[in-house]
């Protein structure tokens, strides 16, 4: 630690300061802002790197390894050849063609007139919509209820905004035998109610849920809504997987329940909707008086989102608006396509002694690994949670990448959920086949 050089004369200062800390930087004061303390670790960075290093069959990170539908790729090509304006700035809060069709499309679903200019903000992926929401609405001292297991970014985002995360877990229902479906994981109404306090600013729900795949039923959402209304709390509803439900399960938008539109921010994703996660187009939708604060954050952070991708997504939604509910709709075809993959993976996991939780919706399936007795003799992971150690072993020894589920739990509850790993099944059949081969080979060799 060097004292700040306060000598006069530039060359002398330079000599003193430059001589030290060449590799640590020659500044003696603390550089980073407090808001980023404790949020520098990230599981994706660690596990994506590992999967790449070991060239593992990747059922880890959640993205399709097949192409987006032809009509959306075509729309993108058309957009980028559509004149100079498609390569220059568009409207900051959302490309007019896109916000108009989103308003039209979702008005029909939510059952109310959504204003494209006031009630919608387009963002760089749903991720940035979440960021704008927390930055706009969460002040120091505000409490945010997070239902676990949760998409990992909610916790650091709440922290960066100075808020306090209060966790409430989904738990396997008592007395229903071996839990087989995500529908069996539920909230305890009493426990949930106990988490609300005068400091509660918001609650975050994710339906369909990542990693569990739970799709909240009407009654469950009513219970949450009642509490939001009673305690005057904002609901942040992450619905990026809204089109991916199986076995006839219906996705319900909490914003469509009585008393909820005026206090709900609903988050959506073109990446998940159109299997183009690399386009990073998302949105937040809600009442103008709340959205305007998200817009303020947006205009002071990224300001604009890329134009051509927004134009392409607009064309995609127009097409889906026209064929909605019919067989030709991508929103029908994709879940149908994934339905089989989901069942196939579940069967394979069962056959090798893993206990999958069959998801009602979404991209992912978790499986209980406690039946396997693997000798994880890797000293480098000695102090890590069991599921982290198992996942790393599976990557290194078997070449199969998954994600440890305790990463989606709070520090307080991580220990109780160390025996699940998460698989992404939104993959080509060849990828799933390769994963199956690895698992069967391993099972056969035991």
């Amino acid at each position, binding site marked *: 630690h060097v004292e700040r050089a306060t000598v006069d004369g*530039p060359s002398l200062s330079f000599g003193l300061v430059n001589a030290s800390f060449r590799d640590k930087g020659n500044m003696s004061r603390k550089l980073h802002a407090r808001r980023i303390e404790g949020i*520098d670790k*990230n599981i*994706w960075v660690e596990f994506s790197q590992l999967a790449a290093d070991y060239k593992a069959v990747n059922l880890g990170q959640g993205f399709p390894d097949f192409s987006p539908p032809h009509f959306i790729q075509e729309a993108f090509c058309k957009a*980028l050849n559509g004149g100079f304006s498609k*390569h220059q700035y568009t409207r900051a809060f959302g490309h007019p063609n896109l916000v108009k069709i989103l308003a039209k499309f979702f008005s029909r679903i939510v059952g109310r007139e959504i204003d494209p200019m006031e009630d919608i903000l387009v963002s760089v992926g749903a991720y940035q919509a979440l960021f704008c929401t927390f930055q706009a609405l969460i002040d120091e001292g505000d409490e945010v209820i997070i239902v676990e297991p949760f998409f990992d970014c909610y916790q650091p985002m709440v922290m960066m905004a100075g808020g306090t995360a209060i966790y409430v877990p989904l738990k396997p229902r008592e007395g229903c035998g071996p839990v087989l479906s995500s529908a069996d994981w539920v909230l305890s109404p009493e426990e949930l109610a106990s988490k609300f306090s005068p400091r509660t600013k918001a609650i975050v729900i994710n339906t369909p849920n990542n990693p569990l795949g739970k799709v909240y039923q009407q009654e469950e959402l009513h219970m949450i809504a009642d509490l939001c209304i009673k305690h005057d709390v904002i609901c942040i509803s992450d619905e990026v997987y809204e089109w991916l439900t199986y076995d006839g399960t219906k996705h319900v938008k909490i914003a469509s329940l009585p008393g909820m539109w005026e206090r709900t921010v609903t988050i959506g994703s073109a990446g998940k909707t159109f299997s183009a996660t690399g386009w990073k187009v998302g949105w937040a939708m809600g009442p103008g008086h709340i959205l305007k604060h998200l817009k303020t954050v947006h205009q002071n952070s990224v300001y604009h989102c890329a134009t051509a991708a927004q134009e392409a997504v607009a064309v995609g939604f127009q097409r889906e608006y026209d064929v909605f509910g019919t067989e030709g709709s991508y929103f029908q075809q994709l879940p149908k396509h994934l339905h089989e993959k989901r069942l196939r993976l579940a069967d394979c996991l069962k056959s090798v002694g893993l206990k999958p939780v069959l998801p009602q919706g979404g991209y992912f399936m978790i499986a209980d690994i406690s039946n396997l007795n693997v000798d994880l003799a890797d000293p480098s992971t000695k102090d890590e949670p069991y599921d982290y150690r198992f996942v790393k072993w599976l990557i290194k020894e078997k070449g199969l990448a998954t994600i440890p589920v305790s990463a989606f739990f709070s520090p307080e509850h991580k220990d109780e959920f160390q025996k699940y790993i998460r698989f992404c099944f939104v993959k080509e059949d060849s990828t799933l086949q390769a994963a199956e081969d690895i698992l069967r080979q391993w099972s056969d060799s035991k």
Partner: protein
Amino acid sequence: MASIKHKNTKRIEGLDKNVWVAFTSVAADPSIVNLGQGYPDIPPPSYVKEGLAQAAMVDRLNQYTRGFGHPTLVKALSKVYGKVYDRQLDPFKEILVTVGGYGSLFSTMQALVEEGDEVIIIEPFFDCYVPMVKMAGGKPVLIPLRLKSSSAASSVSSADWVLDQEELASKFNSKTKAIIINTPNNPIGKIFSRSELQAIADLCIKHDTLCISDEVYEWLVYKGHEHVKIATLPGMWDRTITIGSAGKTFSVTGWKLGWSIGPEHLIKHLQTVMQNSLYTCPTPLQEAVGQGLLRDFELMGKPDCYFTSLALELEGKRDRMAAMLRQTGMTPVVPEGGYFMIADVTALNQDLSHMGDDEPYDYKFVKWMIKEKKLASIPVTAFVGEDSVKQFEKYIRLCFIKQESTLDAAEAILKSWNKD
């Protein structure tokens, strides 16, 4: 009725107003010649567009890429800038890809500025600097560029606008966390000379402050001038974040890709902000920019390198615009770089008293000019703090990265100015 709990957070208090909201709706009216907002109406180079079309055809490139920057792009950036900086740049630790230069500024402020910090900003400044510093809890400390009294009235250059050295030194104190510089500067077009940058560097080192150098217009440098990177001055690499922009480099502002380059111990904090705010930037766009950079890297220093050819093309437009404005009676400040020009409208003696008292003169002039002359520009006081309004309220900003037909239309308006 909106609940009191639905109020905005403290960090964005007062940051909802924005000069662009008022003036960009103007762009929608096709009868108005728009020299206001800074974006090209000339097409981007064809190989860049083609690169995007090709990238979009590759399955993997439509899905998530590396959060801190797509490998093709960060490697290309480390190549190009490695040459410019004459230093080995680690593509993974010393570079962060962001949503435009704007996103780099945001990541930098959120990572490195907090309550109690002062940040020096030079006026006129790209308008987002002040609200971003405020959102991070910092206190903006402003210092204006001043017109040298020695400059001839008829021929003013952006080089005639300088900082008063004593005044600059007086702005630094123990609370100063950083100084933001923008070179080439928006709106004036000034390119800070090596000695001017050295003076700033000396103060940064003396007071142990950071330097945030917004160099998005770095390739748009006109004959006789040189863009110098403050990060290359002795003692500065370790304390400087340098910001660049694909949008400005390749005339694709709508791609919203930019980058921060700096030492690992600073960039890692920006990466933390990135991973907790939007995580990753669009993949196909990054691939296309990476390919474009690799192509131009091979041509660097040659006239058909886009970095050079664009500047050559714009120099002609710059000179043409300056001549048009002079002819009307305005006094343009000829920029050394960038694609904006400010002009002094004092000599026109336009009486705007009928427009009331509550706005600076330039805001009124710009609105009057849109209405009466169908020509759009931006008031320069949008880029300064309250205390400097009087100094800048006779200036308007015009953007000249426009195709010849747009400039023809502007010329027609300016030529017939006094005929009404």
